[in-house]
């Protein structure tokens, strides 16, 4: 790291000092219980960072360093990836429409790169497409992009040189452009979606993968590494999703509320075109901005609805043992394989909970302990913690349900009273 860059990073951290504290809290916590409420009306990238650059005269100056990064996607899985400014995705670049921005790009990768400002209508020579609109940025070089920010909205940045490798390795980030003096929502969250192919027990994502993506990340994290979002009942919440994964579109589903898509990377969606949803599909190469006003307090899941996208490093092509009577086979194999355990005969729930030894640096089937029991989901799963009121900055912890508002076993009396016949009742 050069002194210049360290200076730059500390300036960045100062500009978004609150993020630092939230990040530290998130890392210190073992479980995924909701953290601190944090300030309102500021842009927040859970597990990520927001970079507002710094003013030099009338120009906003950013510095992106493309470089190899050691990245933890969740405790137990650390990857060797490529990113910007020490992370993947890179920092959210926050800027205002109409201002002049100058973005320096230093290439510390072993190969050339370029940066494309996805969705932003900039002069053609600033579009960042190696070969077509510029020469590639060679390793070791620092290049300069400069343009006047044309439109407000949510955009993305990523290389347009060896796209398959560099994006598979994590080179991407979000851009948020505000109107001058625009009204802000109470909560403004920003997520970059990516997908990785990492053989359990390895550290390097496979850039050649086309279908076996087994690590699906929100801002570079899988559950339980994902930091929950926080909102109070009645607050307007905006969540911006950008998807630069290689192959997969993601139906992102919110529990406990109704939402509308208010903008894409092409601009705002006209009011007349908006419709109520609980799930929004975020296709590859697009941005979807959704807004909602939660009315019910609780810990509400937010997740991709593709079931394989809420599993981390799931094995495939295994013998299907569901419904098979293992008979004496378990004991038979244990004679020669003492650690053997018959698995999958009744289903696979709670497998991650058993804490059996798995290949080092891997999270197969891992979820996390929840307030009631083990949460089997991993991958693209997080929580929107909605509370009646948010006061102070103390950690929220799990939602405390009002007496009698949680599902429970039915009593014999209740069953009898409602005429529901059951053969037996499990304890």
């Amino acid at each position, binding site marked *: 790291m050069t002194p210049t860059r360290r200076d730059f990073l500390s300036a960045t951290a100062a500009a978004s000092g609150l993020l630092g504290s939230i990040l530290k809290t998130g890392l210190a916590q073992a479980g995924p219980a909701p953290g601190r409420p944090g300030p309102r009306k500021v842009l927040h990238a859970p597990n990520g960072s927001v970079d507002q650059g710094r003013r030099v005269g009338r120009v906003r100056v950013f510095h992106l360093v493309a470089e190899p990064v050691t990245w933890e996607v969740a405790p137990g899985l650390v990857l060797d990836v490529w990113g910007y400014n020490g992370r993947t995705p890179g920092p959210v670049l926050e800027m205002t429409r109409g201002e002049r921005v100058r973005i320096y790009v230093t290439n510390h990768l072993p190969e050339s790169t370029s940066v494309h400002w996805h969705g932003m209508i900039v002069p053609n020579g600033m579009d960042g497409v190696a070969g077509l609109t510029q020469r590639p940025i060679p390793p070791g070089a620092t290049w300069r992009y400069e343009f006047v920010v044309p439109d407000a909205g949510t955009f993305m940045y990523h290389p347009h040189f060896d796209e398959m490798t560099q994006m598979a390795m994590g080179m991407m980030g979000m851009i948020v452009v505000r109107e001058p003096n625009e009204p802000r929502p109470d909560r403004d969250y920003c997520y970059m979606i990516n997908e990785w192919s990492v053989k359990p027990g390895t550290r390097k994502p496979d850039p050649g993968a086309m279908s076996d993506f087994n690590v699906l990340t929100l801002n570079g994290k899988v559950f339980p590494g994902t930091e929950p979002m926080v909102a109070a009942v009645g607050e307007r919440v905006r969540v911006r999703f950008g998807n630069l994964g290689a192959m997969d579109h993601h139906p992102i589903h919110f529990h406990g509320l109704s939402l509308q898509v208010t903008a894409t990377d092409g601009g705002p969606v006209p009011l007349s075109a908006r419709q109520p949803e609980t799930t929004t599909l975020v296709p590859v190469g697009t941005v979807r901005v959704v807004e909602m006003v939660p009315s019910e307090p609780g810990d509400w899941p937010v997740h991709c609805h593709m079931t394989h996208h809420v599993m981390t490093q799931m094995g495939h092509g295994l*013998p*299907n043992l569901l419904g098979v009577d293992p*008979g004496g*086979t378990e004991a*038979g194999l244990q004679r*020669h394989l003492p650690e053997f355990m018959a698995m999958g005969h009744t289903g696979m729930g709670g497998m991650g909970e058993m804490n059996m030894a798995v290949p080092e640096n891997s999270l197969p089937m891992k979820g996390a302990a929840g307030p009631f029991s083990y949460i089997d989901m991993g991958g693209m799963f997080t929580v929107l913690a909605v509370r009646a009121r948010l006061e102070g900055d103390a950690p929220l912890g799990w939602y405390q349900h009002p007496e009698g508002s949680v599902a429970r076993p039915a009593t014999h009396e209740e069953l009898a009273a409602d005429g529901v016949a059951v053969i037996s009742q499990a304890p």
Partner: protein
Amino acid sequence: MRALIATLAASVTLLGCAPSTTSVFTSVADDAARRTGHRLDWRPEDAQEGLPGVDLARGLARELSSGLTIEGAVRLALRNAPALQVELEQLASAQGAYSQAVAPTNPELHGSVLFHGEGHGTPGVHLDVTMDVLSFVMQATSRRGADAGLEVSRVRALSAFVRLVAEVRLAMLDLLTAERVLEKRTAIVELTSTTADLSSRMRVVGNNTVAEDLNQRAVALQARLDGEAAQAVVLRARLVVERLIGLTGEATVWKTRGGEVPPDRAAGVNRSAGAFERQVVERSLSLDERRAEVQLAAANVDRTQLHRFLPQLGLGVAVEREGDAEMDLGPAFSLTLPIFNLGSGAVDASAAQLRRSQQALTAAAIELRAEARRLWVEAEVSRRRFEAVRDELVPLRTAALEEAQKAYNGMLIGAFALVDMKVAALSAEIALSEALRDAAAAEVRVEAARQGLVLRQDGAASHPGPAETSNPSSSGAGH
């Protein structure tokens, strides 16, 4: 006359010096003990019985009931092996032949009685006693020949002894290894029959295809066939041990003791190839035998040269008495005149035989040196292979199995793949047992060579080639 009596006396003295059967046997036994550390036991009394003596049978029963170790089997074989007694009787027989060869020819008495006409009184008597003088002159030569003959028998008895020790050790190595291999094969049979069971249970509830199920059954069947083959190898190895020790009938109910071949049997003695080669040549029994043959041929040359000019010479005393007259006494002699047969053919033949035996000795020494280097190389190669399998292959397979278990825990691989890895680990252990056997067998051959005997590689004690049992791809693992 006086000289004649002195010669007779000397020959009697020499006769007294001929080694007794017991002393010959003792010298062979001492040599055997020096070479192998085991005692040689000559039991002529067993020959009449045709069966082991009572004491021996008790010893056998005790040794067999506690289980046979490698050295236990050697002890038993040395006490009991009929083939060894055959060689020892051969030695006894050679010793008899030796005494015969060095004994002088007995005197010959020729006599005649002449009756005169009727009423002419006492008949005339003519007697002469002659001795083959050449047998005295040739005493040293005969002795050299007899020495050589006895030496050949002595060497053969020793060779039989060393060979028996080595062959029993090799056979026990084969047996102990075959038993370990059978254990691993049995484990593979149990594992694959369990996965075949699991597969059929999957089939019942519609979770796998007919083809997948057939494959698992074939894998299990292949493993079972391999297991039965391993069992047959054990039975054959037992038969070899029983043949060498001479176990029959009830004595064939026995077991081994101690499990695995002790790994120190594969540990090479710290030696250089050169030192080992010298040692093998110095102690070689086959070279001793060749040298004895040279001695025999040299003695034969002396004999034929002497006989060439003097095929036969008898000297003695003649006595004659005519009627009642005084007895007349005078010297007697007889000789064969070398007129028609000058014996040059026999001399040439014996000289050629001598040269031939000398050449054979040289050739044998050269071949022996080559064999010694071959043994040394084979011991080194097989020991290194054993160490590599032990220190590298087995730990690798073990670690891979541990990783496979972790992958199974994470549901990254299934039970069938896990069992495949276990089978691969067991196959590595089989390879280890076989590599240990090969290294230990090479050491046995090296040891035998240092005791004087280079075993033929294709000899009765050779073991089945590793290709039959050590190839993991034949394990039926269905990788």
